[in-house]
């Protein structure tokens, strides 16, 4: 594959489905898989995460982004269940803002490391510029 792929994990299926659509609009060429919810309920599921990663895996790399704590545990569990994990990274980035940057960077053909680094900088991003009175 030419581009790093993305896997989006959330406790809510709607969140990642919506996020995927938003990113597809910006970067139709980047492969994005989602793993949201558990059996239609709020939660996460390591098997679904594993399948999501497999569905977009390439040696170019896969970046995983997640929403909150227990999603990370399932992501790490999924990693242990995967055969190849060389080119997979879990990003320490806010889900929506990080995924946006990751999609843009991936679409520029950046390497896995570059994409991870860029989206982890989403944290430093100032979203609201406070100049005058607030």
């Amino acid at each position, binding site marked *: 594959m030419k581009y790093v792929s993305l896997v989006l994990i959330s406790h809510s299926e709607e969140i990642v489905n919506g996020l995927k659509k938003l990113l597809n609009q910006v970067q139709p060429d980047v492969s994005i898989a989602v793993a949201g919810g*558990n*059996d239609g*309920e*709020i*939660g*996460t*599921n*390591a*098997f679904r995460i594993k399948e999501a990663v497999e569905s977009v895996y390439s040696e170019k790399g896969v970046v995983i982004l997640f929403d*909150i*704590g*227990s999603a990370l*545990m*399932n992501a*790490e*569990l999924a990693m242990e269940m995967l055969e190849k994990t060389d080119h997979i990274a879990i990003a320490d980035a806010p889900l929506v803002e990080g995924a946006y940057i990751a999609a843009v960077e991936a679409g520029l053909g950046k390497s896995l490391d570059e994409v991870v680094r860029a989206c982890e900088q989403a944290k430093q991003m100032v979203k609201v510029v406070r100049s005058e009175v607030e």
Partner: protein
Amino acid sequence: MAFGVEQAKRWMSIANDHIQQQKQYLTELDQAIGDGDHGLNMARGFQEVVEKIASANYEDLGSLFKDISMTLIAKVGGASGPLYGTAFLRMSLALAGKKEADDKELIAALEAALDGIKARGKANVGEKTMVDVWEPVMEFLREKESLQVKEAALLAKEKMEHTKELEAKKGRAAYLGKRSVGHIDPGSASSHLLFAALAEALEG
């Protein structure tokens, strides 16, 4: 005391009974300091576990605990899913190929389970998680070198109650900071139920 497939199945069955009965209680604990789904998560997961293992024949304890693990990983949804899932996965590795486990072997397997929980959740004692039940219980069993399960279950209860005094540092309850003090940790409560069920399964 022999611990074979039959005993292990009984353990799960009794554990499930307790969890179904205490579903509302576990949920209330989680409503106070989490998202209120721990009862639901555990009830869904263990119901599936007993259904899955009831009909199947297992050659060894390893394959039984593998099924338990995979079912919990697939069905629980919350943090407790990967945590208990990893615990039973480590047990299944420790007991692979064994038709029966003696006290030492079962204690070693439970020790592996605790290691799994800690590896998965990266929590230490005092952070108001299920580790606050598992770690002291395993310390006790390790020292005794025999399966004093009744005493272990009592200790689990005591340690569960002790989580009330702790401030959460891991899991959702950590978002509450000091406001998590005064509430029993839901995962500690379900862990107590597991040790209580083990005692009943082996003593009964």
